[in-house]
């Protein structure tokens, strides 16, 4: 089966040859230069191809020009790129490598990948500041990829095993084309992308979507604080800003006076943006924030062109959205195919008409989607989904911990965060419990609010009482 994405990228890179394609703090590449670098890197990867198998190449790095080169190199080499969140710890990364049968990993030289790689492979700078390592072999046979799978990305699974979503090349291409068309991207746009390219927000709105019309993509890694982003916007004259709500919160906290002169559109997704933050951001900068609604498994679904209010907008081209009492169902041209490492789980959520059950609940008013709730147990902290069951299991493994419950609660800043109530033996401290979590989990999964108790409060049928747990958080901690 002929792959779709290498042809699509080859076409756009040739078509926009002299325009700036991608920049970061260390440099920039025009479309033609990006093509040349990606081809050279692809030749480097192709040396490791096994006859009859497509290479599986993990990408585990923060946003950079080199990241984009590595992604395109994998596609041009006929490999399948697996885009892993750079915030994952070695536990999640090892599960990914084992579950998905990765062959190679592209990563920063200093990344802690020792548990899963055998050796750094020789290279001649094709990947810039990144290196390629061979992933160690696991005993279990690796799952077979669907023939039309060209990209794999990850979503929260259970117990620390991220689910690997397989995407066909045509689904990836459709997501980008429909986003570019539905949001009016043009060659004159300069997109400052502060979300990780491994995440659906950035992947679908800023990678191929930027390249299709010949726009330029401006990347930054590290924490997207307001001061840093203002510098990026000023140096790139970006017209479009793509970020999670945390950046908009930061801008409101810092209240910068300048930097937004060229910005026409700001896009927020991944987690709900507080209305007060939206209003204050627009008051400070004059830039409207546009909501969009997307699901990892289906790609972008709606876009709010008006940039006001809490509505998530109308369906994008190629999206069929059904909002019903039992939840939101969707069929899109950008749908994933299945989970590579969780057979049957994805398929269970797709009905006989091909609609994916999102687990979200909402309402349509004048063809504008409003979310009203979610049936999933996952906790959304700043755009990252966390399974509270996984966190409770980690807590229960800490020394002196008798039982634990993790759940979503509001922090002192009015933002949703992960809270845990932990029953402990006498003498156990919050410090020791938190240290156990910090040593076991990536920092975004460490409960921000931790409350130690003698026993977990339960309801009349012996289950943890969420109401009493939440009430506990409002009471002073006893010693």
């Amino acid at each position: 089966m002929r792959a779709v994405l290498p042809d699509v990228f080859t076409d756009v890179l040739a078509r926009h040859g002299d325009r700036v394609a991608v920049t970061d703090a260390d440099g920039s590449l025009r479309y033609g230069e990006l093509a040349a670098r990606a081809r050279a890197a692809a030749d480097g990867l192709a040396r490791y191809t096994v006859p009859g198998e497509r290479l599986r190449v993990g990408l585990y790095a923060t946003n950079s020009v080199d990241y984009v080169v590595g992604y395109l190199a994998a596609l041009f080499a006929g490999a399948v790129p697996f885009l892993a969140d750079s915030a994952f710890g070695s536990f999640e990364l090892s599960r990914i490598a084992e579950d998905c049968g990765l062959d190679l990993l592209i990563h920063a030289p200093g990344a802690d990948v020792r548990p899963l790689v055998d050796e750094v492979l020789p290279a001649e700078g094709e990947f810039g500041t990144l290196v390629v390592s061979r992933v160690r072999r696991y005993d279990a046979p690796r799952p077979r990829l669907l023939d039309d799978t060209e990209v794999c990305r990850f979503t929260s699974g259970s117990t620390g095993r991220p689910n690997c979503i397989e995407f066909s090349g045509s689904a990836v291409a459709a997501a980008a084309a429909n986003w570019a068309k539905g949001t009016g991207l043009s060659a004159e746009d300069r997109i400052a992308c502060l979300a990780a390219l491994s995440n659906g927000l950035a992947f679908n709105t800023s990678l191929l979507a930027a390249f299709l019309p010949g726009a330029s993509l401006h990347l930054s890694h590290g924490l997207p604080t307001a001061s840093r982003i203002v510098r990026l916007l000023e140096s790139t004259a970006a017209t479009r800003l793509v970020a999670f709500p945390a950046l908009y919160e930061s801008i409101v906290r810092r209240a910068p006076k300048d930097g937004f002169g060229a910005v026409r559109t700001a896009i927020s997704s991944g987690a709900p943006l507080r209305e007060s933050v939206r209003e204050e951001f627009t008051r400070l900068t004059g830039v409207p924030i546009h909501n969009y609604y997307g699901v990892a498994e289906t790609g972008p679904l709606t876009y709010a062109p008006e940039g006001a209010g809490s509505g998530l907008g109308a369906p994008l081209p190629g999206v069929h959205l059904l909002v019903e009492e039992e939840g939101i169902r969707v069929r899109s041209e950008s749908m994933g195919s299945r989970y590579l490492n969780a057979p049957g789980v994805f398929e269970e959520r797709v009905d006989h008409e091909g609609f994916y059950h999102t687990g979200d609940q909402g309402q349509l008013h004048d063809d504008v989607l409003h979310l009203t709730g979610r049936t999933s147990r996952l906790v959304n902290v700043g755009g990252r989904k966390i399974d509270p069951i996984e966190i409770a299991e980690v807590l229960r493994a800490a020394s002196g911990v008798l039982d634990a419950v993790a759940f979503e609660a509001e922090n002192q800043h009015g933002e949703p965060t992960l809270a845990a109530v932990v029953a402990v033996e006498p003498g156990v401290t919050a410090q020791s419990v938190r240290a156990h979590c910090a040593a076991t989990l990536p920092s975004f999964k460490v409960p921000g609010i931790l409350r130690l108790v003698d026993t977990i409060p339960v309801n009349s049928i012996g289950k943890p009482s969420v109401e009493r747990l939440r009430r506990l958080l409002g009471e002073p901690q006893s010693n």
Partner: protein
Amino acid sequence: MDNSSLRTKIIDLAVAAGDGSLSVDELAGANYSLRDVGYSSLSYMRLIDSIENEVGVYLDPEAAIEHYETIDSVTALVIASGIGADA
């Protein structure tokens, strides 16, 4: 502001930028290591913003991660960045 006062201020800002249950005592018990208390990226963003607002300095969040691992390394970074240079 002398270095000791600055350090005390940064401790207070770090606790205030947390989610709510991190205390000065717990931070002291962890030798003022933000890494060891699992300080999240969202808390770091709030901390950097509040340091910039209150101390008048630009902190580059792309500075090496070691600069953000402890209260002492953050304090050193603030001093090196030049207090009052970029309010």
